[in-house]
C-alpha cells in the first residue's frame, strides 16, 4: 500500500517539476531577457504563457506536501524541522514569485512593472534552487529521522545539496526554454522561437553537463546514492534520462518543437524517478517507507479521495490547457 501511495506522491512531484518547475524556469528567462524595451516581447510571451496556468501548476507542490504529511508523517516532520532554513526561503520565494507576478500584471507604470518583474524573476531563480537544495539534503542522507535531529546548516550546505540546487535551476530553465519555443512558434513569433530554441539547446547541454558533474559530486559525497544510481532500476532510469536528453537536443536541432516537449519532460522525469528508485525503500537514513508510512486506513482513504478527485481534476485540467493552447485568434463575442 505505501509503495502505491509513494508512487502517487512521486508522480505529483514529477508533475510539479515538469509544470510548476517550468513556470519558475520561465521566470529565470525573464531575468535574462534584457532591458525593458529589448526584452518586452519575450516577457510578454512568458507572461501570456504562464499567466493562466501557474496557479494550477503550483497546486502540485501543496499536493505533494500534504500527501507527505498524511502518508509519511515522521518524514515530513524530520525534513521540515531540520531543513527549516532553506524551506523558509522556499516559502518566501513562493510568495515573492506569485505575488510579484500578479502585481506586475496589475501595474501600469513601467518602473513598477520593472520592480515587480525583478522580484518575480529573482524569486523564480531562488525558489527552485532552495527546493533542489532541500531535495539534495534528503538525497545525500543528511536529514536523519526525528525532529530537528540533523544539522541545521551542514545538512543543506554541502556539495550534494548545492549540486542538486544548481541542477534543479538548470532543469527548470531548460524545460521552460523548450516549452516557450513551441509557444512562440504557435503564436507565429518566429524570431522569439529561434531565440528560445537557441536557449533550449544551450541550457540543455549545460543541464546535461551539470547532471554529470552532480553525479561526480555524489560519487565523493554520497557514495551509497551514487552506487544505487548506477545499478539496477536506478541505472535503467539514468540511461532513459540520458537517451531522452540527447534525443531532445536532436529534435531541437531538427525544429520538432512539439515532440521535444515530450522527450525533454521524459529526460527530467527519468532523472527524478532515478533518484527515487535508487533510494527506495529508504526515505531517510535508517527509515524505510514501510516504517514511516501512516496506517493503511489513512492511505486508503487518501488514495480513494484522490481517485475520485482525479475524475474531476483530469478533465478540468485538460480543458484548461486546451483553452489556452488553442492557436486560433480569440473568438469575438458581442
Amino acid at each position, binding site marked *: 500500500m505505501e509503495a502505491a501511495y509513494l508512487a502517487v506522491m512521486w508522480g505529483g512531484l514529477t508533475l510539479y517539476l515538469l509544470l510548476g518547475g517550468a513556470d519558475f524556469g520561465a521566470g529565470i528567462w525573464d531575468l535574462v531577457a534584457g532591458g525593458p524595451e529589448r526584452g518586452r516581447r519575450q516577457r510578454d510571451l512568458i507572461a501570456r504563457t504562464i499567466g493562466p496556468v501557474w496557479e494550477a501548476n503550483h497546486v502540485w507542490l501543496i499536493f505533494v506536501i500534504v500527501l507527505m504529511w498524511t502518508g509519511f508523517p515522521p518524514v515530513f516532520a524530520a525534513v521540515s524541522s531540520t531543513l527549516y532554513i532553506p524551506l523558509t526561503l522556499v516559502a518566501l520565494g513562493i510568495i515573492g514569485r506569485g*505575488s510579484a507576478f500578479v502585481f506586475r500584471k496589475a501595474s501600469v507604470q513601467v518602473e513598477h512593472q520593472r520592480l515587480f518583474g525583478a522580484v518575480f524573476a529573482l524569486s523564480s531563480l531562488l525558489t527552485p534552487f532552495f527546493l533542489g537544495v532541500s531535495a539534495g539534503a534528503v538525497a545525500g542522507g543528511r536529514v536523519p529521522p526525528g525532529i530537528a535531529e540533523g544539522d541545521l546548516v551542514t545538512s543543506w550546505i554541502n556539495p550534494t545539496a548545492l549540486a542538486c540546487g544548481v541542477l534543479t535551476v538548470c532543469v527548470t530553465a531548460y524545460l521552460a526554454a523548450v516549452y516557450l519555443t513551441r509557444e512562440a512558434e504557435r503564436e507565429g513569433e518566429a524570431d522569439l522561437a529561434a531565440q528560445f530554441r537557441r536557449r533550449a539547446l544551450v541550457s540543455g547541454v549545460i543541464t546535461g553537463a551539470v547532471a554529470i558533474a552532480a553525479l561526480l559530486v555524489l560519487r565523493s559525497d554520497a557514495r551509497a546514492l551514487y552506487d544505487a544510481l548506477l545499478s539496477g532500476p536506478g541505472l535503467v532510469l539514468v540511461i532513459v534520462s540520458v537517451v531522452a536528453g540527447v534525443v531532445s537536443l536532436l529534435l531541437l536541432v531538427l525544429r520538432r518543437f512539439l515532440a521535444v516537449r515530450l522527450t525533454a519532460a521524459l529526460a527530467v522525469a527519468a532523472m527524478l524517478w532515478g533518484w527515487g528508485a535508487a533510494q527506495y525503500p529508504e526515505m531517510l537514513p535508517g527509515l524505510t517507507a514501510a516504517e514511516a508510512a501512516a496506517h493503511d486506513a489513512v492511505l486508503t482513504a487518501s488514495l480513494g479521495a484522490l481517485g475520485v478527485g482525479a475524475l474531476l481534476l483530469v478533465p478540468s485540467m485538460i480543458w484548461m490547457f486546451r483553452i489556452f493552447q488553442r492557436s486560433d485568434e480569440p473568438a469575438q463575442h458581442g
Partner: protein
Amino acid sequence: MISAFLAGLPLEAATPADLLAARQQMALSLGWHIVFACFGVGMPLITLIAEVLGIRTGDPVYRLLARRWAKVMGVLFAVGAVSGTILSFEMGILWPGLMGTYGQVIGLPFSLEGIAFFIEAIFVGIYLYGWDRLPPKVHALTGVPIVIAGVASAFFVVTANAWMNQPTGFSEADGRVITVDPWAAMFNPATPPQTTHMIVAAFMVAGFGMASVYAVAMLRGRRDRYHRLGFTIPFTLAAILTPVQIVVGDWAAKFLHERQPIKLAAIEGVFESGKHVPLHLGGIVIDGEMRYAIEIPSGLSLLAGNKPSTHIVGLNTVPEADQPPVNIVHLAFQSMVAIGFALLALSAVFAFVWWRRRRLPETPWFWRAAALAGAGAAFAVEAGWVTTEVGRQPWVVYGVLRTADAVNPAPGLRWGFYLVTAVYVVLTVITIVVLRRMTRSTPVPDEITNADVEAVH
C-alpha cells in the same frame, strides 16, 4: 562556526522566546491568509451574481462590475494562494511535533482540500483569462466550480482545525498513534458549528469588504448607478448573512459549553463553577477575578443552556498550567460579538430603508458606517480566530498535545519570524497600493457602454 555553535545547544525543547516566535509567526501567517481566503471564498459568488445579471439584462453596468471585480479577484486569489502555501510549510517548519505524530490523522481533509484547491485554481485561470475565449454563458458557468470549490476548501481546512479542538478518530499508546479512522477525525463534533461559522464569515468579509469600497465612493459624491449597484450587490448578500451568523455564533458558543467548557470559561472570565452565572460585558481579569465588567445576571447560564440554572464549568476546575490566557480571549470574543451586532444594526437600517422607501439610505452616517464595515468584518474574523486559538491554549490538540511540545526545538526560530514579518509588512503595503492604483488607473466613465466592458483586460 555557526553550525558548531548551533549544534552545541540542547535541542530538548524550544526556548520560550522561540516558542512565542513560532506562535506569532503562525498567527501572523494565518491571520494574513484568512482575510485573502475570505475574499477567495466570497468574491467569486458576488462577481458571478453581477455577471449573470449582466448576461440576463445585457446591462453594461453589471458587466463592467463583473469584469472589474474579476480583475481584483485575480490579484487577491493569487496572493491568497501563495500565502496559503506558506502555511503548509509552516505546519512542518514550526510544528513538527504535531505533524509527525498526528499528520496522518488530519491528512484526509487536507488531501480533499488539495483537490478542491486544484479545481479552484484551474477554473480561476479559465475564468480570469477566458472572457474573450468562451461564450458568455459558458464563461459564467466556469465560475460555478470556483464558488463550490472555494466553499469546499474552507470546509476541509476548518475541519482540521475543528479536530484540534475535538480530537477524535484515533487511538494511541506510548505516544504513538495505533489506529486511525480519518473520516471520524474529519467529522469530529466541532466540525459542524466551526465550519458553518467560518464559511458564513467568509461571505460576510467579502460582501462588506467589497461594499465598503463603494460606500467610500458614495461619501465622495459618486452616486451613479455603477457605484450604487457596486454597493448593493455585495452588501445585500452580507446583510442577509449577518443575522444568520449571529444564530450560528450562538450555536458555536453552546457547543463550547457542552464540549470545550474551559474555552467558554476563558471567553467569559468565569473562574468558579456554578449556576446562575452572569454574562460579562467588557471587564478585565486582575488577580484571577473579573473586574469592571457590566454583569447581566444569569446571562451566561441562560445563553449556554437556555435556562438560568444552567451549570457553567469554571477555569479553576483545571490546574493553572492548563488555563488559557483569559484577558486576550475575553477581549477578542467581546470585539467579535460587538462588531457582529454593529453589522446587524447596519444591515437592519439598510433593510428598513429598502422596505419602506425602495432606495438606499441617504444619511452620511450610514455610509460612514458602511465604509468601515469591511474592515470591521475582517477584524471580527481575526478576533474570532484569536478566541478559538488562544482559547485552546496551552493545548495545540485539546487535551492531547501541548503547544510547547509540538514546536520545532531547533534554535533560531525567531529569526524566521522576523523575516516572515518583514515580508508580510511589505506585501501588505504593496497589495494595497497595487489595488488602489488598479482601480484609479482606469476610472469608471459616467456613461458606461459595452466598449468600456470590452476594454477591461
